[in-house]
């Protein structure tokens, strides 16, 4: 983890704007980020760009699980990604960037470093 002191967090939206098992897109420092909330209220953030199709759509994928992993499926061609690591579980060697995300004072914050 990055040193909390030098980390810059950007508040994105109120927590309830991210519905359980669904995602939203946000612009963080010019980068498109997809933020998801799982059924047990954990938050995850990954890059919104589908690395295979090249379109910014990941936030609109279906959230679920594969084995233990919380996942999201690309809405374009349904490749499934592990929300914790960004790793694509269907195509070896493909991954999306992940971002740290947390809730402070009811606001969802994404690490902008």
């Amino acid at each position, binding site marked *: 983890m990055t040193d909390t002191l030098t980390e810059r967090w950007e508040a994105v939206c109120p927590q309830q704007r991210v*519905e*359980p098992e*669904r995602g939203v897109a946000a612009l963080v420092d010019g980068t498109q980020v997809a933020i998801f909330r799982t059924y047990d209220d954990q938050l995850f953030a990954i890059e919104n760009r589908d690395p295979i199709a090249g*379109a910014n759509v990941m936030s609109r994928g279906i*959230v679920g699980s594969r*084995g233990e992993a919380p996942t999201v499926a690309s*809405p374009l061609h349904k490749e499934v990604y592990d929300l914790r690591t960004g790793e694509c579980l269907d195509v070896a060697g493909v991954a999306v960037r992940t971002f740290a995300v947390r809730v402070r004072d009811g606001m969802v914050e994404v690490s902008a470093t």
Partner: protein
Amino acid sequence: MKSLVVVGNGMVGQRFVEALRSRDTAGEWRVTVLAEEGRAAYDRVRLSAFFDGVSAEELSLHTEDSGVDLRLGEPVMRVDRQRRVAVTGGGEYPYDALVFATGSYPFVPPVDGTDLPGVFVYRTLDDLEAIREHAKGRRTGAVIGGGLLGLEAANALRLLGLSTHVVEFAPRLMPVQVDEAGGAMLRRYVEELDVKVHTGTGTTAIRPRTDGQAVHGLTLSDGSWVQADIVVVAAGIRPRDDVARAAGLDTGERGGILVDTACRTADERIWAIGECAAVEGRCYGLVAPGYAMAEVVADRLLGGQATFPGADMSTKLKLLGVDVASFGDAHGATEGCLDVTFTDPATRVYAKLVLSDDAKTLLGGVLVGDASAYPTLRASVGGPLPGPPLALLAPESDGAGTRSGIAALPGGAQVCSCNAVTKDQIVGAIHEGCADVPAIKACTRAGTSCGSCVPMLKQLLAVSGVQLSKALCEHFEHSRQELFEIVRVRGIRTFSQLVTEHGRGRGCDICKPAVASILASLGNGYVLDGEQATLQDTNDHFLANIQRDGTYSVVPRIPGGEITPEKLIVIGEVARDFGLYTKITGGQRIDLFGARVEQLPRIWRRLVDAGFESGHAYGKALRTVKSCVGSTWCRYGVQDSVGLAVALELRYRGLRAPHKIKSAVSGCARECAEARSKDFGIIATDSGWNLYVGGNGGFRPRHADLFASDLSTDDLVRYVDRFLMFYIRTADRLQRTAAWIEAMDGGLDHLRAVIVDDSLGLCADLDAAIARHVESYEDEWRATVDDPERVRRFTSFVNAPDTPDPSITFAVERGQPVPALGERRPVVLGLPTMGVSQ
């Protein structure tokens, strides 16, 4: 280019031309087909279906091919081998190669009276039409011949309402296929249908009425008299070798154009295939060997080396509703062979296995009354018995018995004899990823002709390592159908409850949309409320179709393809104002592309205000009911096809299903709306509507099958209601209606029984479910744009709702916006592999 002349356009001739044309990619051959009959090839095997109301068009095997010069009603009279021309009444046709596919003619025994009016043979559609015509107003009929054809003819006379007699010279019915005891069992079935059977007696004469104008009856060799107003002669067939013989070609001992295993005559330019050919002296009176010959000659003409491997004469038939099968050495002609027989008078099943003298090898057998073990047994001929004999023969043996049977089959055993596909080839296809029967069919052709091996394909799937698990995905062990029942019966209303109580994990992109569709089909209201929203695929979530660049397309409903100029103008204005690419779809509507998520509510506000509704192009739901202009304008139209299409589209709009549903209505038999390529298609007739089901375009195009004819509008709607609801309840996820019907035990007949005769007692339920749908329908887009809370979901960025996705940019092509993707990479789809089965 070389010239190929094909003599005869029957089943085999047609298959041959198709096989050659599909492989002759270099265009080596120019093909001329000279046909005696006035209509193009049709399915002679199913000829009798004509009396069940199947029309001549539906029996047609004809495929449009501009590369083939098909000359109907122009029989070949002579072949001049010196000058290499085929001579017809219309001219001379030079050839480099000539293929005889002239089939057989019915054998008519030399007795008096066969030329009387009212005496017919049973070979062509013309024969059947004449029989039907003559039978009007008559009461009695007789068939000469108690074999396969004779029994089919007897059933036809029965269906025409005649009291029917069958006269067979041999001591039993179907003497070629079944043995004594099997014949006796068959006779009991047949007599129960009020058909009088006379065996062991010949016909000595056909007698006219006293006025000499028509047939009156038969005198039999035992002296008895059978009265008949109509007589059908079905006493066997003879190969049509007359033209070949006159050209100086050799014929077999018992007739047939003599050819070698390449199907070539002594003249290297002349070939013979199908029933007219005597391959090394032997003729084959079934279609499957003929198809194999067709493939051989197609291959040879393109330089291949294929040979005809011989064919077994195993048959499985349903005659007068009775299953009859015989295979291998059915009569126990092998020296020292042993019989195992099984007779059950209670279930009226007779079965016999013929085994080698050491009782280890299966040689052949006969089944009457229940032929479910036929596929396994036939494929085991020549090998070890696939299980204990009684377990194999006892009815309902497709439980444990045949299952162990299929596993014990040798790999080289032919599972599909029509298309010569072995067990090894099918198992290979399964290992390469074919996971269901339609996939195996597409990849190996097994099961695509007579269909009798389909149960075996299912068993092979079941026993192959690729367990045919019905589990939807890792979260549910149930099939979609089972989940549907669970949700329905237990009244479950949320995915969370379902997955907690009946599944595991948190779901995925497979089970969530499937459950969403089930909940929607069961009338759980607006699809984006509460938890339901999280189940939806992005298309359903944003009520639009996602495109490659992450934008969406918008399709307003245009019922029946009918639209006023005012509404057209609105669509044009919306497209212009939002900079959308517009395209007319195949479903007679207009698709607007390039809308960003945050634009969708504004676009729809305008459309809804102008009276448009969601077209559900994004949903697994009814899409369009396409129509031709019908009797309102068209000079050929016989019914108002547009009116019906609009009514149907409005009735079923928004109905969620396992897959998309398409439909069309044509105003007359010319079928301009292409209704037969739809899940349910309707074609107007003079007195009502014909309903077709199970068609689709796409990857594996398929014509819909006739479900019922001449329906009133009320009956039509009732049947469609039930068809759709039954499909929604019982189909697998993403299974189109065609595959659903194909996979159904009993197929179309079963479906008809469920929908028309209410054989499962479900109809009241299905009717009520549709009624609920019709009542509770609301336009999803209106419900969305009228509710600010719902509209809020349509944002580009939660923290910058007014900023459009900066990565979406457009270029201009032919005056319209198109995605300007940095790297436009083609999308790779999993294509089915075509196996070559020879």
